[in-house]
């Protein structure tokens, strides 16, 4: 304790008890909830009503606390240092005679607000303690243990507006123009149709005949219909070849395809 820099605080030599308290504080600095918490703890060493607290003395104590932390090479968070700077400023305001040219609150006003903050924080802590000490549900008093089933009779009422109705109708009436992926059945000749048609015709195909002659009637002129009918007829022919009813040949690429009944 011999290295305590008492000369730093000539105006208020800390007592042994204060020094010990300050050291204990530093060791525990992690446990504090910020500078205001430290100030509140320090203020208790004054053993007076918070309303009669000496803010000047408190400022000394806090600055000593920060100084001590520095000596012990304890990193204090920035807000502790900001508070130290503010308290140093407050101290000077309190000690020096007021400068009439300077604006802003007086040292006394600042000190009074700090005292108010400390008192308010303490009051909230006391209130919190009283609150937590109350009889509490699930600990001191209890709700009904057995939950009786409340049957929920749920009924759903459906509704719609006239606008919904009209929009719905409008939606249907205008859908044709945009309906995606709806096959135009008029222009599709299915393989099943072709197969059925071919089965009826192959009995007559003793000689090699161009597949084009097997296209159904009325499907040859419209290119879209023609394409569909050709594809279906060709696929049906392959199926019949596979089944062993038909023979198929093509002499060259893109040359006509010929069909003949298998003998």
């Amino acid at each position: 304790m011999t290295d305590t820099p008492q000369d730093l605080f000539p105006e208020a030599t800390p007592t042994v008890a204060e020094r010990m308290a300050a050291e204990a504080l530093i060791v525990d600095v992690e446990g504090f909830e910020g500078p205001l918490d430290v100030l509140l703890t320090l203020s208790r060493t004054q053993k007076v009503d918070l309303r009669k607290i000496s803010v000047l003395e408190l400022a000394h104590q806090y600055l000593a606390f920060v100084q001590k932390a520095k000596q012990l090479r304890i990193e204090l968070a920035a807000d502790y240092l900001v508070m130290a700077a503010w308290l140093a400023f407050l101290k000077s305001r309190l000690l020096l005679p007021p400068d009439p040219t300077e604006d802003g609150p007086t040292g006394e006003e600042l000190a009074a607000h700090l005292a108010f903050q400390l008192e308010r924080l303490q009051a909230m802590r006391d209130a919190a303690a009283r609150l937590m000490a109350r009889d509490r549900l699930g600990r001191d008093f209890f709700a009904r243990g057995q939950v009786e089933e409340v049957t929920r009779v749920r009924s759903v009422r459906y509704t719609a507006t006239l606008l919904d109705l009209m929009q719905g109708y409008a939606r249907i009436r205008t859908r044709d123009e945009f309906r995606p992926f709806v096959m135009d059945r008029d222009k599709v000749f299915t393989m099943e149709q072709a197969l059925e048609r071919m089965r009826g015709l192959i009995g007559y195909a003793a000689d090699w005949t161009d597949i084009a002659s097997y296209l159904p009637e009325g499907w040859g002129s419209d290119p879209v219909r023609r394409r569909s009918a050709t594809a279906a007829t060709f696929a049906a022919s392959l199926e019949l070849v596979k089944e062993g009813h038909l023979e198929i040949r093509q002499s060259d690429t893109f040359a006509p395809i010929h069909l003949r009944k298998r003998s």
Partner: protein
Amino acid sequence: MTMQPPTEEEEQSLFKAPPMGEQERMVEAILFATPEAVTVKELESRMPHGCDAAEALAHLRKRYEGRGVRVVRIDDAWAMRTAPDLGYLMQKETVETRKLSRAAIETLAIIAYHQPATRAEIEEIRGVSVSRGTIDQLLEMEWIRFGRRKMTPGRPVTFVVTPIFLDHFGLENARDLPGLKELRAAGLLENRPPVGSFAMGPDREEDEEDEAPGQSELFED
């Protein structure tokens, strides 16, 4: 923990059971807070030494006679239960208002505009099959009813809208429904952009967003 040995007098009062009124309160609180039925033995094990749970129970039972809550015996255990005649109070009625599905609205619209309409006609116009659930729902709401059978092969049933429907939509009769021309004039027949386009009208958007075409059919009924 150390304790001073009690003096004889203290020992006396220490083992004196609480008054019966107090015991009754204890049994009441325990039965209330405990989810399961509690046996006399268990009651006594939880109450201060010397209590007579059976007697306290008898008093409590009497106190609750005719009340909204009763003390009942379940096997050899005791519990508190609401009076059976008040069971109907344990029902909670909630009415939820929900919007009709898109399928139902469209079906309803077709019936309203084309009545009498057969199911086949509805399907033809909508381009998808109509689920039984949709028709049943509209019938149940009493917004549509069966009309005369059609004089076509198979004599299919038809559907028509009801006075309840007209009342709900504030119509005097179905002919009051706006025609296509009016719908267009009101901006209700604006051409919808092809699927995949991003430029959508503001009030259409909502419609498109929450109901992908065809999807609602999947969730029908």
